[in-house]
């Protein structure tokens, strides 16, 4: 896996030159696979941040388009280009960026998203106020159909492991995290092509303090969420996470129940009633108070497919996963 690192001029950065350049405080990692037409906006929102002391590492995940030219066209000294010769997905691409990062803190941006211009400043302000916190969690604004959702919270304070484990929602584009933590944990799990950010956040939350940053706003208004499409992937990912973090979820019965519940729905869509039923059962076994798990388990037991479809239509209407 070759990684070429170029400076803004397009000339290869020699190792000694890299050491001589002063380290920025924040490294922003932006992986992209093609999508060059969106780069001026996502990279633009990083480069226009009120906090100026940053480097932006655009990681080209083996694109077929000419990303390098698009990166150079940004015309900013703070941009660096790194290329992966083999496509590895978001997890691997971000890890490539982390390996190149020189900042004390790391943030992530996606090629089709944006930040409000005070994002980094808001994150830094909160992390400086909380020197024992290792990660700041901002908010993500998304358009869902006619409506919108904003992840995260308006309340300042610690975000517990229980809160993180409760739902697979953890946009890396809303983080600011100390680089040493990422390195110690080995970065993102490259076997995951989905929810790799949630999985890493679980590991961080298990050992470190995470704080909320209500004023750090990221925007994902451009595209409808396409993650919901391929449910077979969801099944594989949830299984992988459940087994990898067996010990962690063993201590969190409600969260484990929810995990099995989420898995069960996707199993219903992909593998059928029997595997789904088993997973609903594990859900109420982990948390007997999980009424929905009981209900769906009962419906599966009685093979009442149409009733299940009707209830899901009503309960899950418009709700993202």
């Amino acid at each position: 896996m070759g990684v070429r690192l170029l400076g803004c001029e397009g000339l290869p950065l020699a190792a000694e030159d890299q050491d001589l350049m002063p380290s920025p405080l924040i490294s922003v990692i932006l992986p992209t696979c093609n999508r060059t037409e969106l780069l001026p906006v996502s990279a633009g929102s990083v480069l226009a941040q009120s906090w100026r002391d940053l480097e932006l590492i655009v990681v080209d995940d083996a694109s077929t388009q000419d990303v390098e030219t698009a990166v150079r066209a940004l015309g900013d000294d703070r941009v660096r280009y790194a290329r992966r010769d083999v496509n590895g997905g978001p997890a691997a691409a971000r890890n490539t960026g982390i390996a190149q990062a020189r900042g004390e803190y790391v943030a992530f941006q996606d090629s089709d998203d944006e930040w409000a211009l005070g994002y980094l400043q808001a994150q830094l302000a909160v992390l400086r106020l909380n020197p024992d916190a290792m990660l700041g969690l901002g908010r993500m604004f998304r358009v869902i159909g006619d409506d919108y959702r904003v992840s995260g919270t308006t309340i300042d304070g610690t975000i517990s492991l229980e809160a993180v484990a409760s739902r697979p929602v953890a946009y890396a584009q809303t983080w600011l995290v100390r680089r040493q933590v990422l390195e110690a944990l080995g970065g993102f799990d490259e076997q995951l092509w989905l929810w790799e950010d949630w999985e890493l956040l679980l590991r961080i939350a298990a050992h470190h303090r995470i704080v909320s940053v209500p004023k750090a706003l990221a925007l994902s208004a451009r595209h409808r969420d396409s993650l919901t499409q391929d449910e077979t992937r969801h099944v594989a990912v949830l299984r992988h996470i459940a087994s990898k973090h067996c010990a962690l979820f063993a201590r969190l019965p409600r969260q484990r129940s929810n995990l099995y519940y989420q898995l069960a729905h996707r199993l219903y869509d992909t593998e059928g009633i029997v595997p789904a039923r088993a997973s609903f059962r594990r859900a109420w076994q982990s948390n007997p108070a999980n009424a929905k798990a009981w209900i769906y388990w009962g419906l599966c037991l009685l093979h009442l497919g149409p009733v299940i479809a009707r209830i899901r239509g009503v309960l899950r209407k418009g709700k993202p996963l």
Partner: protein
Amino acid sequence: MTGQPQISIILPTHNRADVLGRAVRSVLAQTFDQLELIVVDDASTDATAELVAGFDDPRIRYLRVEKQGGAAVARNLGVRNSSASLLAFQDSDDEWTCDKLRDQYQAYAKLGKDKPCLVCCSCIFLMADGAVSWRRPDARVRQGDLAPDNLLSAFYSTPTWLMPRTTFELLGGFDESMPNLEDWEMYLRLYSQSRGANIIVLEHPFVIRHKGDDSLNDRLDARLESLQEVIARHAGIWKNQPKALASLYVTLGRTQYEMGRMRDGRDSFVRALKLDRTSPRLYLQWVFGFLGAKAYRLQRKIRT
């Protein structure tokens, strides 16, 4: 940028040096870079001049007004001192996402040039505590189907505008006598054009409006005065649509209740009732005017 600017952005400002940098930077960071940015300093006494001077970008210009005249005066001055054929406006509190001008320019290019035009977009409101709100423009509005009954709900204010200079000149600019809502007033003049107008709203939120809670009541006061003035001035628009005019008086009445001006609020609801006797809710709202401001706020809180 090479050559002449294609879009002139006018940014009136008064003593907002604390946030102005963000507004300026979001304009200079636009992917559509054939622009000039004219900052009209409306008699600021803070570090506004130094802040603007600190930007190393040939596209930015600074105009100073020595005697404070308000946003309408400042904007008209900025337009007179600009050169591009398209106009946009920015406010000191707001920021734009990087693609605003490019997407709006593309939408404008598709409009017929036989009528005066305006391209708006939706916006995200960001409160001081971090709360976020957004409303998707409804289908009628997105298609440019404006009618007296949606002229207030369909209104998106100046930081979202892209307007040809010819349209601005046809309308005669902002009304300098209005302390507030001068942009809605101009919008209504555009709508009332005998030739009609092409007004479209892009649904993507290209504008983020930061709302502080500074002197909220002062602003409400100024808006009330202006709202009544605007309604009176453009009553003709709603001549054949009494219900639509009634809903405007409802908005006015609600605002007056919020401010504790119960008698004024009741008067507004009476006006609304004269135009639309069929709505039971209007009677209820009028009655609330006798129960006092606290009761009104409580029922609002319960309902939301």
